[in-house]
């Protein structure tokens, strides 16, 4: 656990001493502001629904870029050799990296709290809905970070790893649209459930849905497991 904590602190430090975290914060807040404005002017209601839904899609493209360096860069710079020859269990490495990226996501999300604050100034937003919405986004971040780690373990080239990450995540977005194009009911329902937008939707209504919680947990653990397998198997090549 101490080792995972050390990895966690190191990853977080690297995020914040490099310009990366600040660039992300800037881009993310800009997008959030844009969606907030559009949401309010287009629907005329004082809610965060539009902003939060669109931020989910933005995260799909942004988070793989945030996590792409984890394994790819370590392998390229040779620090991977330190990780694999120091007494660092693989689970500690994964946990440390995953948690550090999630904390960065928390910082990004915390930045957008500005918008509910603006709403509160002019109106009376439903704080329960705001809370569950943010919970949904955080779960989404955990899931996407996990997939991002997996893509990073696949390539030595950070940029390639980032692109692979986006490609892995895209089907979970497109599935929602695809569900409206298929005839068979069972296929439509499968596609609908695959889409992360379907899963995050109850949270934006103030509902904590157990099915959705299970979906995010499964997604996160499945990709952490794949990362673990991928790192292990690459050692043998």
């Amino acid at each position, binding site marked *: 656990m101490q080792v995972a904590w050390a990895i966690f602190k190191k990853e977080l*430090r690297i995020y914040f*001493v490099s310009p990366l975290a600040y660039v992300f914060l800037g881009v993310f807040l800009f997008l959030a502001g844009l969606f907030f404005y559009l949401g309010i002017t287009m629907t005329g209601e004082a809610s965060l629904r539009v902003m939060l839904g669109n931020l989910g899609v933005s995260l799909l493209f942004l988070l793989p870029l945030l996590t792409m360096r984890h394994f790819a860069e370590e392998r390229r*710079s*040779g620090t991977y*050799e330190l990780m*694999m*020859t*120091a*007494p*660092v269990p693989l689970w500690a490495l994964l946990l440390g990296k995953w948690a550090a990226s999630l904390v960065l996501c928390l910082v990004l999300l915390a930045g957008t709290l500005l918008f509910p604050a603006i709403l509160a100034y002019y109106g009376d937003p439903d704080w329960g809905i705001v809370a569950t919405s943010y919970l949904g986004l955080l779960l989404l971040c955990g899931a996407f970070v996990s997939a991002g780690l997996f893509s990073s373990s696949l390539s030595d080239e950070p940029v390639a790893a980032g692109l692979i990450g986006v490609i892995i995540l895209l089907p979970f977005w497109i599935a929602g649209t695809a569900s409206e194009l298929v005839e068979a009911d069972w296929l439509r329902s499968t596609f609908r459930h695959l889409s992360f937008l379907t899963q995050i939707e109850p949270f934006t209504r103030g509902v904590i849905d157990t099915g959705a919680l299970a979906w995010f947990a499964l997604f996160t653990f499945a990709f952490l497991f794949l990362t673990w397998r991928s790192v292990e198997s690459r050692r043998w090549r």
Partner: protein
Amino acid sequence: MISAQQLTKRFGTLTAVDRVSFEVERGEILGFIGPNGAGKTTTMRMLTGFIPATEGTAIVAGHDVFEAPMAVRRSVGYLPETPPLYRELTIGDYLRFVAEIRGIDARDRTRRIGQVMEQVGLSGWEKRILGSLSKGYRQRVGLAQAIIHDPPVLILDEPTSGLDPAQVAGMRDFVRRLAEDRTVILSTHILPEVELICGRAVLIAQGRVLADDTIDGLRRHAGGGIRYRIELKGGDPSAIPARVGALAEVEQVTPLEPDQGFAVLDVRAPADPRTAVARLATEQGWTIRAMERHVPSLEEAFLAIIGAER
């Protein structure tokens, strides 16, 4: 302390390391020499557990590399070919991180970091960013990282590559001091280094061990041993080789091309034969122009052994 048995590593159809076996005793400094691409790095990576061997076993500090990898990782300090540094971090933050993952007690960390920084000559450099360091300083941080947990076994992959001559000398002294209570394997292709630091060397080329001996032994192995070049003139030049060869101290005489009337001899002898030759020359009234003792360098031994393989 270290024992490699029939270590083999194949990458697809390429055999990078082919049944390599050797032993290293406690307190010994073993030089790992060989041309680039010989399999030195791959062998070291197998010893540290970074990559698994295709076949064979290795015991490091009493633990099997494949069965108890974590125990091996704890007892080994490893400096890879490229120092494993996070460019974004400062020296201090980096060493603190390594101390943490190496499980050094929180109360001892600061003291230990100060100690190793002083040992490698980095005192006062805590705040420097790793990405801004020159090659020599990066190498020092790499070494500090390898010794921070005071490991009984040190594996150093080309510790002097990219250093200037003064730094090389410093590194040499440092490794020698480290080895007083440790076992060290270091790889290099700079042979004078091995001659100065190591008691013993394993010569490896194309993945195979060609020689495993003390430095003197390697020289002998090369077939040369110590030779003497003797140049004499007087009387019948063609009779000189036979007269010298008849001396009890001399093992073998090979006449070389005569030079300006001097007979030039390549003499092999178990002990220095020069006083005997001088006595003979005085008796015969010969002129002595040269009597040189030639100790083959490890370089020559190295080339001779590799040449014989090809």
